[in-house]
C-alpha cells in the first residue's frame, strides 16, 4: 500500500442487514481530500445503503467509520452534517412551497427567530457564483426544474459547510448539459480540497466524474480502481460479474396498420399552462416510436393523454381506428393500451401488496383470475409464478410485499403485468431509468419482443442511445411541440440534440450535415 495522507473518510467492514437481505457485507471505502470517489454497482448492490449508513440514516450492524482519522459514531444526518458530511438524495428533500433561501436554512441550528433572508440570499448568490451555478435564491422550489432543484440541494450542503458531498445517482434526472455543469461544480469543489462520493451505475459517468472507483456487487466491494487506469468495459464486467452485451440486435420489421394516431393534440399541465401543443403522429403495428426530449418538455403529459390520465384541451386521439379522445383510464385499457409509468413505486405498483397481487392488477377483472366478481386466488398465484419465472423477477416469494424488491425487480414485475395485458399499444415511460445494465438489457429486449409481435410501442426516454438502438423513428419534443420525427437508422445525435434544444428538424439537419 502506498504512503498517503490520512483519508478524510474511511468506512471499515460495514455490514448492514435488512430482513432477508445482506445489503452491505464488510464493505470498505476510503477517500482523500480533493478526490471524487465513484461507487459503481447494479441496483441493489448496496451503494445507497452504504451511504445512508454514512449519513446516519441507517445504523450499521457491524463496522467502523473514521472521519479525519477519528473514530466516529453517526446517529443521524445532523451528526453527519456536524462532521461535514452531506448527501443529495435521489428524491430531493425540499419544500416546494418555500423559496430557495428558505429551504437552504430550513432546519439549521441556531437560526434567529426571524432569519435575515436577504443576508442568506446574498450568501447563496456568492456561493452560486463561485461554483458557476445559476440559482435565484428567491425562487420557489415548485418553479424550478429538477436540475435546478438538484443545484439547490448541493448549495444547501455547501452553505452548511459540507466537506464531503455524497451524490446519489445525481445525473439520473439531468440533461446532458446539466450533467456537464455538475461535473464542473465538482471540479471546482475538489480543487478546493472538498471531496465527493458519487453513486452511479453508469460507466461513462465514472469515467467523467471520478478519480477512484469502487465497484460493489451484492453488498461487497469487489474491486478498487484508479479511474485513469480502467475502462468502461472492465468496469461493466466487474459490476455484473459477466460480460455484457451493449448492442441489441434489432430485426427488420414491416409496420402494419396504424394503432395510435394523435391529431393536433393540445393539453395543459397542473398549473394550467400549455404542456402539449399541436402534437400529431402515428404508430403502426410492429413499430417503436421513440420520444426524445429534455425532461419536462411534455413527455409526461403525452403519456397521460394517451393512457386516459389527463384530458386533452384540443385535438383527437385514435386507437386502432376508434376515437378515444378524453376517455377514462379504464376505457383506454380496454381499447388496448398498456402503460409502464415513469413513477414505478408511486403509480406502477402498490408497495404494501404482494408481488402476486401486483402482477394481477390488470388481469383481475376477467377470467381466469376472476369469475363474475369472485377472485380465484389459486389462479392468481399460478399466474404470478408464471410471470416471476418468465420475467426472472427476483423475489423471496409471490406473497412478499413488492416494496421489498429492488427497483429493477419492481420494474420487471410492472413490465410483466403490462406486457401480458397488452392488446395493441404499449406506452413505456423511462422504462430503463435507474436500472442496472442487466435489467436495462432485459427491458429493452422485452420492448423489441413486443415490436416483433406486432404491437405498437411508444417509448419515452431520455437516453438517446436507447432511442437510437430500440426505436424505429424518433420524435423530438420541445416545449410540448414535436420538433420533427426522424428515422433512427440515420439519426444523428447532434441533430437530435439541436432539436431537443428547440431547433426545428430541417434547420437542425442542415446545421449538422453542413
Amino acid at each position, binding site marked *: 500500500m502506498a504512503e498517503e495522507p490520512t483519508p478524510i473518510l474511511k468506512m471499515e467492514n460495514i455490514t448492514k442487514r435488512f430482513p432477508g437481505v445482506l445489503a452491505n457485507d464488510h464493505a*470498505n471505502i476510503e477517500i482523500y481530500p480533493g478526490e471524487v470517489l465513484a461507487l459503481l454497482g447494479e441496483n441493489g448492490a448496496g451503494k445507497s445503503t452504504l451511504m445512508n449508513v454514512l449519513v446516519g440514516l441507517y445504523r450499521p450492524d457491524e463496522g467502523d467509520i473514521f472521519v479525519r482519522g477519528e473514530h466516529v459514531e453517526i446517529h443521524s444526518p445532523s451528526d453527519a452534517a456536524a462532521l461535514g458530511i452531506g448527501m443529495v438524495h435521489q428524491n430531493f428533500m425540499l419544500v416546494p412551497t418555500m423559496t430557495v433561501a428558505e429551504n437552504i436554512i430550513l432546519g439549521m441550528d441556531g437560526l434567529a427567530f426571524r432569519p435575515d433572508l436577504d443576508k442568506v440570499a446574498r450568501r447563496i448568490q456568492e456561493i452560486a457564483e463561485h461554483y458557476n451555478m445559476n440559482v435565484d435564491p428567491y425562487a420557489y422550489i415548485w418553479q424550478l426544474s429538477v436540475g435546478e432543484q438538484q443545484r439547490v440541494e448541493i448549495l444547501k450542503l455547501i452553505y452548511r459547510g459540507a466537506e464531503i458531498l455524497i451524490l446519489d445517482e445525481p445525473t439520473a434526472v439531468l440533461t446532458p448539459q446539466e450533467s456537464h455543469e455538475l461535473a464542473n461544480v465538482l471540479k471546482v469543489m475538489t480543487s478546493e480540497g472538498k471531496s465527493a462520493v458519487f453513486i452511479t451505475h453508469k460507466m461513462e459517468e465514472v469515467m467523467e466524474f471520478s478519480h477512484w472507483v469502487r465497484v460493489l456487487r451484492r453488498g461487497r466491494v469487489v474491486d478498487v480502481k484508479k479511474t485513469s487506469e480502467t475502462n468502461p468495459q472492465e468496469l461493466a464486467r466487474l459490476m455484473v460479474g459477466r460480460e455484457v452485451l451493449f448492442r441489441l440486435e434489432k430485426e427488420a420489421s414491416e409496420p402494419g396498420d396504424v394503432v395510435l394516431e394523435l391529431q393536433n393534440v393540445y393539453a395543459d399541465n397542473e398549473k394550467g399552462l400549455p404542456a402539449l401543443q399541436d402534437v400529431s403522429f402515428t404508430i403502426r403495428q410492429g413499430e417503436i416510436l421513440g420520444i426524445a426530449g429534455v425532461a419536462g418538455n411534455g413527455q409526461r403529459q403525452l403519456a397521460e393523454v394517451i*393512457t386516459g390520465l389527463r384530458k386533452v384541451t384540443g385535438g383527437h386521439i385514435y386507437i386502432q381506428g376508434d376515437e378515444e379522445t378524453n376517455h377514462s383510464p*379504464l376505457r383506454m385499457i*380496454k381499447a388496448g393500451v398498456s402503460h409502464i409509468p415513469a413513477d414505478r413505486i*408511486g*403509480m406502477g405498483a402498490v408497495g404494501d401488496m404482494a408481488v402476486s397481487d401486483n402482477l394481477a392488477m390488470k388481469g*383481475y377483472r376477467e377470467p381466469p383470475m376472476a369469475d363474475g366478481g*369472485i*377472485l380465484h386466488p389459486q389462479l392468481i398465484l399460478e399466474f404470478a409464478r408464471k410471470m416471476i419465472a418468465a420475467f426472472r423477477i427476483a423475489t423471496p416469494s409471490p406473497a412478499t*410485499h413488492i416494496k421489498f424488491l429492488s427497483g429493477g425487480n419492481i420494474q420487471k414485475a410492472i413490465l410483466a403485468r403490462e406486457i401480458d395485458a397488452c392488446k395493441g399499444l404499449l406506452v413505456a415511460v423511462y422504462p430503463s431509468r435507474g436500472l442496472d445494465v442487466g435489467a436495462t438489457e432485459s427491458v429493452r429486449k422485452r420492448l423489441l419482443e413486443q415490436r416483433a409481435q406486432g404491437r405498437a410501442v411508444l417509448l419515452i426516454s431520455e437516453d438517446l442511445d436507447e432511442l437510437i438502438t430500440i426505436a424505429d423513428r424518433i420524435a423530438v419534443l420541445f416545449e410540448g411541440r414535436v420538433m420533427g420525427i426522424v428515422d433512427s437508422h440515420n439519426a444523428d445525435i447532434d441533430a437530435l440534440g439541436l432539436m431537443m434544444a428547440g431547433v426545428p428538424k430541417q434547420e437542425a439537419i442542415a446545421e449538422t450535415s453542413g
Partner: protein
Amino acid sequence: MQIIFEKRESVSRQAVILVPIVSFLVSLLFGAILLALSGANPFITYGAMFSGAFGTWNRFTETLVKAIPLMLTGLGVSIAFRMRFWNIGAEGQLTLGGVAAAGVALYLSQGLPGWLVLLLCILAGCIAGAIWAGVPAILKAYLKVDETLTTLMLNYVAILFSEQLYYVSWRAPGYNSGTAPFPETAWLPRIAGRAHIGLFFAIILAGILWFVFNRTRWGFELKIIGENQTAARYLGIDIERNIVLAILLSGAISGLAGASEVLGIARRLQQGLSVGYGYTAIIVAWMAQLNPIVILFVGILMAALLVGGDQIQMKMRLPAAVGLVLQGMILIPMLAGSIFTEYHIRIIRPQKTGVEAEA
C-alpha cells in the same frame, strides 16, 4: 448492545395472534398498578370485573347486548378505514338508523303482514345509516371535503334530531320522553336474556366482509384504493364511485346497529340510543386491525370492559372514574402493541471480529 426495530417483510402470523395476548397482559399489569395506587386490591377488582361480565349466564347475555352494537359499528367503520376514509360518524349513522327503524315501526307498519314489518324496519335503518354516511362520502369523493369534520358534525345533527323526536314530535302521551312501544311485529327476536339476533347479523356480516375483502374483485379494488390512489387511477379503477359505495355500506351497517338496538332492546325510541358505541367502534376496528372476524372478538372484549367497569363501580365502591381510566389503560398497550406485528426487535451485541480483514 443495541436494540433496534426492524420492519417485518410480511406480517407474521404468529405475531398477529401472540401480540394482542401479550399486550392484554401488559395492560392488566398497568391497570393493576393503578388500582393498587388507588387503594383497591387488583386481583379482587379484576375478579369483580370478570365475574361482572361473564360470571353468570345472565351477565354474559348483558355483555352480548353491548357487544352487538360494538361489533356492527366496528364492522361498519372498518370498511371506511380500509379506504383511508376517516368515518367517525358511526354514532350518528347508528342513531339515525334507530330513528328510521322506529319511524317505520310506529307509523308505517299498520296493515302490513307481520314478517314484512320487521324487514322494513331493518331496511329503513340500513338506508338511513347509508344516507348519513353517503353525504360526507359524496362530498369527499367529488368535492374533496374533509370527511372527519363532516362525519363528526353529522353525529350531532342526528343525535339532536333523535332527541327532538322522542322529546317532542314522536313522544307518546303520558310519558316525559320516549315514543310509544313498537307493535310486536317490529320486535327483533331475542336469543337469550336481552341479547337479540343482531348477534347473528354481526357474525354473518363479518363472514361476508371477510369474503368481500379477500375473495372478490371489488374487495381487491378497495384494497388498491386504500393503499395507493395514484396506482388505482392508473389501473383504471373508478375511485370516486368505489369510495361512495364502500361508505354507503359502512353507514348501512352502522344503521343496522341502531335499528337492531331499538328493535331488539328498548323496542321504543327513547333516551339511551346514543351512548357512544359508534365512537368505541373506532377503537374496536383498529384493535382488530380491521379484520372483520377479529372485530367480533374485540367487540366482546370491549363490551366486557364496559359491563365489568360498571360492576366495579357498584360492587367495589370505586369512583366511577376508575372504571373509565382502567378502560383507557387497557387500550393503550393493546394499540401500541400492534407495532410488533409489523416490526420485530433485534438485539445486537458488539462483535469483536478480526478488524484487519482487507485493506
